C-alpha cells in the first residue's frame, strides 16, 4: 500500500521488477484476496520525444509503485509529463528506457486490463449514448441484450437514465463526460487511467462528478491513476498524491492522504489533514508552476 518515489540511479532499480509474482491475479481482478502492494510498477522510466531533430525529455528517471486498489492522483504543472506517463502505462507509446509492469506482467501495447478515460469525451458522434457506453462490450462480442442491460445499468447509476437514445451532440459537456467514464467502467478494467476527466467542466458539475466517481470507486476498488492540475481535486480524491515537476518531467515526491473513507467531498476542505497537505504540497507545486512558465 506504499507509493515509493525513489530518486536513485538507474542501476539500483532492477530489483523491484522481479519482486512481484502476481501475474495470474492480473488476468482476473476479482480473484486476489489480499491486494498486492506493488501492483502497478514503473521502474526507471524515461521518455524522449524527437521532433524535427530536437530531442525533448518528457520524462526522466521516474519510479512509481502503486498498490492494488489505490486511488493515486498525479498533480503538476503543464509539461511535467503527466499525460506522457498515462500514455506509457496505457501502452499507447513505449518508454525510451525502463519497464512498466501490472501485477508482475509487463505492459506491451494496449490491453484490456487498462481503461483510459480521456480529457476530451471522445464519444463516437454517430452512435447514441447507449451504443457508446456499450461499445467496449460490443468489441468483446457480448450479446446485444446483455450489453444493453449493462449500459442501462451504468447510465442509471450516473443519472443518465432516459438519455440512452440521444446522440453526443445533443448532450451537455457534463453528461458526455459521465458517458465517457462509464464507457470505461462497464468492462471493469482493474487499472483505470484518468486524464483530467473533469478539466473542461464548470466547478459545480466537477464536484458532483467527483463525488459520484468516489462512490462508484468505493464499490469497485480498482486501481486508479488520475491526472489533474487541480491540487484540491488531487487531495480530495486520492489515497496518495504524486507531485510531478517539470524540465525535465519527473516525480518530485508522494504524499499519503490520511483522510478516512468514505469522504464527504463537499466538506473535505474543512478537514485539518486536507489543509495541512494542501499547504505542504502547494509550496512545491507553486515552485514548479513558476519553473514551467519561465
Amino acid at each position, binding site marked *: 500500500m506504499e507509493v515509493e518515489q525513489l530518486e536513485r540511479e538507474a542501476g539500483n532499480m532492477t530489483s523491484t521488477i522481479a519482486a512481484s509474482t502476481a501475474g495470474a491475479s492480473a488476468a482476473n481482478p476479482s480473484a486476489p484476496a489480499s491486494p498486492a502492494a506493488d501492483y502497478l510498477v514503473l521502474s526507471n522510466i524515461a521518455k524522449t520525444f524527437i521532433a524535427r531533430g530536437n530531442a525533448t525529455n518528457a520524462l526522466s528517471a521516474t519510479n512509481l509503485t502503486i498498490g492494488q486498489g489505490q486511488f493515486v492522483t498525479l498533480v503538476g504543472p503543464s509539461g511535467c509529463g503527466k499525460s506522457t506517463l498515462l500514455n506509457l502505462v496505457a501502452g*499507447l507509446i513505449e518508454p525510451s528506457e525502463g519497464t512498466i509492469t501490472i501485477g508482475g506482467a509487463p505492459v506491451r501495447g494496449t490491453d484490456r486490463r487498462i481503461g483510459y478515460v480521456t480529457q476530451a469525451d471522445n464519444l463516437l458522434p*454517430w452512435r447514441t449514448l447507449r451504443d457508446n457506453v456499450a*461499445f467496449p462490450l460490443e468489441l468483446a462480442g457480448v450479446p446485444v441484450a446483455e450489453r444493453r442491460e449493462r449500459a442501462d445499468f451504468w447510465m442509471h447509476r450516473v443519472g443518465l437514465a432516459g438519455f440512452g437514445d440521444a446522440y453526443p*451532440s445533443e448532450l451537455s459537456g457534463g453528461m458526455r463526460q459521465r458517458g465517457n467514464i462509464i464507457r470505461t467502467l462497464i468492462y471493469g478494467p482493474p487499472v483505470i487511467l484518468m486524464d483530467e476527466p473533469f478539466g473542461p467542466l464548470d466547478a459545480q458539475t466537477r464536484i458532483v462528478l467527483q463525488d459520484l466517481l468516489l462512490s462508484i470507486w468505493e464499490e469497485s476498488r480498482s486501481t486508479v491513476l488520475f491526472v489533474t492540475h487541480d491540487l484540491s481535486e488531487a487531495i480530495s480524491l486520492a489515497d496518495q498524491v504524486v507531485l510531478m515537476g517539470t524540465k525535465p518531467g519527473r516525480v518530485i515526491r508522494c504524499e499519503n492522504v490520511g483522510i478516512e473513507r468514505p469522504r464527504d467531498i463537499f466538506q473535505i476542505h474543512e478537514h485539518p489533514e486536507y489543509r495541512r497537505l494542501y499547504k505542504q504540497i502547494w509550496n512545491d507545486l507553486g515552485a514548479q508552476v513558476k519553473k514551467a512558465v519561465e
Partner: protein
Amino acid sequence: MTSRPSLFDPDSARAVFIGRLLLAVSVLLLWQLGAGHLFDIFFFGKPTLIAASIFNDLRDPGFYRDLGVTGMEFGMGYVIGGFAGIACGVLLARWRYMAKLADPFLQALNAVPRIALAPMLIVWFGIGMSSKVFLAATLVFFIMFFNTLSGIRSVSPALCSVAKIQGATQWQIFTKIMLPSASSWIFTGLKMSLPFALVGVILGEFMVSSVGLGYRLNAYATAYNTSAALGMIMIMMCLMMLLTWGANALDARLMGWRDGGGDGAAAALKA
C-alpha cells in the same frame, strides 16, 4: 415591394413563398408577353409553347422509352462509378505506399477532359449504352474516390486510440470507427456526383446514340425546335431536382447525428 411595409416580415415563410411566386410569375409573364417583340421566339421560345411541347412529350410513349434508357444508363454509371470509387478510396486510404505511388497517375487521369474521350469511347464501347455508362462512371468515380480517401484520412486518431485501448482489433477499428467516421464524406460525395452522372450520360447521348433524353434533346435542337428543346431541358432540370431532394432527405435521415438538433440547450440545463 409591398404597399404596407410595416406588415412585411422578411423572415416569415409566407413572405418568402409569396416573394418567390411573384418572381417566377413576373419572369414568365415578361417572357410570354415579350416573346415576338423583345425576344425572338426562334431563339428563346415562349412559355406557352414550351409547356405545350412538354405536354406532348409526356404523352408520347417514345419519351418514356428514352427516359428509361437514360435512367438505366444513369443508374448503372452512378452505381458502378460510386462503388469503384469508394472501394479504391478505402483501399488506398489503408495502403499508404500504394496511395503515394498511384497519386500522380490518378491526378493525371482525373485531369483528362471527359469530352475528349468521346471519339475513343465509340471505338471502345460502340454506340450502345455502355459508352454512356462508362462516361458517367468515370465522373462519379473520381468524386467518390477523393471523398472516401479524405474521409478516412480525416478520422480522429484519438477515437482510434480509445477503441484500441478498449480492445478493438485493427478490423474493428476500420469497420466501427473509420468507415462510420468517413460516412459523412462519402455521403457528401454521393450527393455531389448525382448531377455529374447525369451530365456524363447526356453528354454520351449527344455524341452518338439513337435513344435517350440526350438524343431527344439533340434531335429537337438540330431541328431548330427551340420550344421543344427548352422543354426537354426543363424536364431534365426537374428530374435532377427530384433526385437531389431525395438524396437530401435520405442524408438528413441517416446523418442526423451530425447536427446537434434542438435538444442540446434543454439537455444542458438538466445536467
